């Protein structure tokens, strides 16, 4: 499988990823010194 259904390009290498269990529409990523919360 080579094609994801959604793709997001962050500003730097992503080190951490958390998909909220209580808010399944949101995914949090951590890169450089930034935490971003993405809407799926």
């Amino acid at each position, binding site marked *: *499988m*080579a*094609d*994801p*259904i*959604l*793709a*997001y*390009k*962050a*500003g*730097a*290498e*992503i*080190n*951490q*990823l*958390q*998909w*909220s*269990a209580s808010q*399944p529409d949101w*995914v949090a*990523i951590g*890169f450089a010194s930034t935490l971003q919360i*993405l809407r*799926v």
Partner: protein
Amino acid sequence: MWNRSICFCWRRWLCAALRSEISRAFNNHIREQRSPRRSASSAPCLEQARHKLLGHSGCAAPLILQHESTSGLIVSHLFMNCVVQVMDSCSVVVLDIRIPSIPVASLQGHEQSVNAIAWAPHSHCHICSAGDDSQALIWDLQALPRPIEGLPILFSAHH
């Protein structure tokens, strides 16, 4: 980084059994893939893994397995018989723990190594992966063949 963060492990005895079986079976699979001629070398290992895992196949609780080395396998959350492995390369491999030598899927969208993966909490067929190429990718596994239901081995007891 993974060495530090993926050291938490509950039900350690199961983790250890799973880890060794899965990594052994997976290594066998890689070896078979590399050699042009397919061999039956993984068969005994597969049987052992099945025996060990059959009793736990219904487990859907998150299960974090210990990371073996920085260049080795990272096994993440167990969800409905499936685990996700990140190879040291850029591919993410989904395994059915009952048949660990045959990957269910290989996700190849990252250009550099993958650092994190997560199952969708609300869906059994979505995974998010993120890596050194700055990308966060969400994958839909719905198109994959359904996991095998029920026992892979049947015994009849009539005489």
